């Protein structure tokens, strides 16, 4: 399986994992068939540090959840990862496009919170 390259943006304290202070961007090479969990592991970002995660403008994870790890990555994908510190009040994300896994997770726990 050929390797893939994904474009990654890291925001907040986790930018340090790609050489930044508050913001960092990097091209990360992964094995084919890798997922977001593999990407987080490669960057050494722990579950406690990560907040919102987007893949190609689709919201895949929120603080305190673990809904994105199985999301498969393809060549050229863009992934945005935010630190746990980042905020996104509910009224400003009500109706955004989300992954199926996150939609299921939020339906179980209730979407209307500001902590996530």
């Amino acid at each position, binding site marked *: 399986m050929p390797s893939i390259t994904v474009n990654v*943006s890291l*925001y*907040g304290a986790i*930018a340090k994992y790609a050489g930044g*202070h*508050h*913001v960092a*961007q990097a091209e990360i090479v992964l094995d084919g068939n890798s997922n977001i969990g593999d990407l987080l592991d490669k960057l050494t970002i722990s579950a406690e540090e990560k907040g*919102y995660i*987007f893949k*190609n*403008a689709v*919201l895949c994870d929120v*603080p305190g959840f673990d809904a994105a790890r199985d999301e498969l990555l393809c060549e050229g994908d863009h992934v*945005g990862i*935010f630190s*746990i*510190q*980042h*905020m*996104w*009040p*509910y*009224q*400003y*994300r*009500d*109706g*955004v*496009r*989300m992954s199926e896994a996150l*939609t299921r997770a*939020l*339906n179980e726990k*209730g*979407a*209307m*919170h*500001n*902590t996530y």
Partner: protein
Amino acid sequence: MARKLLRINMSDLKATYEDIPKKWAKWGGRGMTSAIVFDEVDPACHPLGPHNKVVIAPGWVTGTPAAPSSGRSSFGGKSPLTGTIKESNAGGLSGQKIAKLGLAAIILEGTPAKDQWHYLVITKDGVEFKDASDLMGKGMYEIDEILWKDHPKTAVIGIGQAGEMKLSNAGISINDPENKPGRYAGRGGLGAVIGARGIKAIVIDDSGGPGVEIANKGLFEKGRKNLTEAIQEHALTKKDGGLNAYGTDVLMNIINEAGGLPTRNFSAGQFEGAAKISGEAIAEVVEKRDGEGMTGHGCHPGCIIQCSNIYPDESGKALVSCLEYETAFSLGSNCGIDDLDTIARMTRECNDLGLDTIEAGNSIAIAMEGGLLEFGDAEGALKLFDEIRNKTPLGRILGQGVEATAKAFGVHRVPTVKGQSMPAYEPRAIKGIGVTYATSPMGADHTSGYTIAPEIAGVSGKLDPLTDEGKADLSLAFQASTAFIDSSGYCLFVAFPILDIQTGFEGMVDSVAGVMGMDLTGDDAIALGKEILKMERLFNERAGFTKEDDRLPEFMRYEKLPPHDVVWSMADEELDKVYAWVHED
């Protein structure tokens, strides 16, 4: 001492103190401004004519000891921008000082003789009407400095040149603790209505004032402690939390990643330069320039959230406060500009001239689409503020806001509702907020619908965010709870912790009940909010607005927004449900 109303008539330069009529006695902040405007302003009047008024009201708890983040002042009247009722509120020094003078509201009415301009000095002893000739033509940075020479440590409410010209995008400035004009009751053009009263500035000196009477000190104390703890505990509002560390511009990269960042006059949902103009970038500049800049700045005494910032210039000197998300979007991504220093300079121009940054940036974006200059032309955009300062015809057009600018430049992509342009959340990508944009009595407004806990709102917390079902009920609950918070004097950002922390919500309600001597529960908060919305809605109806005005602009129904390539698809019938109850009672 019971709270009083101060009525200032600019026709005969008389000020009278009045007892609060029973019908208004329960109100503060937005509830007070909307109640007075509803009762005293003819909805059909011209906003700049003699029959409009400006009402200034501190919130219920504003000016009380140690109520956290509670320094808001509401400003109300009929809006020159929208033609609707308008309430716009801000932090800064004014709210606490007005409240400590024992005033529940200041009503500005009447019109002076032609070309007669005054500034007012309000103290515990009354109102002085002073000749403002020496202040005319000056911007707010200079006005604040001049007035503090004679009246140090006072609150200064004022209008820049935009208000003097009675432009529809003229905001009302309030000085911050550093006596800079960064706090704006910006939206809706109420600065022009103050200008139409012949008032350039109002100095509030609370020395020796009676302070705020608290009806039930025990209940107030219990409430404010619970709310304080919730703010300090919650991830969004605690020290070094997202807001404190990066300010409201912490949302720039998030909304951009979500594909909902309005870009180049609402033609796209992502901006390639977003990271350069984000809260993270501001934090980097502040650290790198190592001077007077700072994050975690408070806009008024007693704020414990401290989401403001002071942006430094290249030499480290303070350039402007505050550089917010809405400003970075309107003057940044929506104009295709990714230069933070230029955005900061344009923000300073807005603060000086007395312009709302959202409407100002969006108007420039319209002019860019109309061919006046290219998207991304930062220097060209900055120079446009001189057109306003120099009172040129172009400057006057831009200062009238997005709709006027669009007509002047023949642009059909006009992102407005009821004449007010949209803030920084693209409703085609973030559909929930579109309902509030469409139906708010204020026009497109991102602060009209803050979330409240599902059990208080009376809706399920497990609503599917991807369907339209329940969005009308949700928006109404959000709008009602927001109207309540806008009346409290608390910063709207207390809504973040009180959604997740029940004791925080109870604390907010208890603190209000403690000050006012009211018997309040969470359900009452929604009911009071709906009372306010009903007055505002009825005012608008009498001004000629119908449900057909509760619509997003046409282009959003057929123009696909990249990267998601979505259009606004909510049925009009769903939008009409939000206010269907107004005539049912």
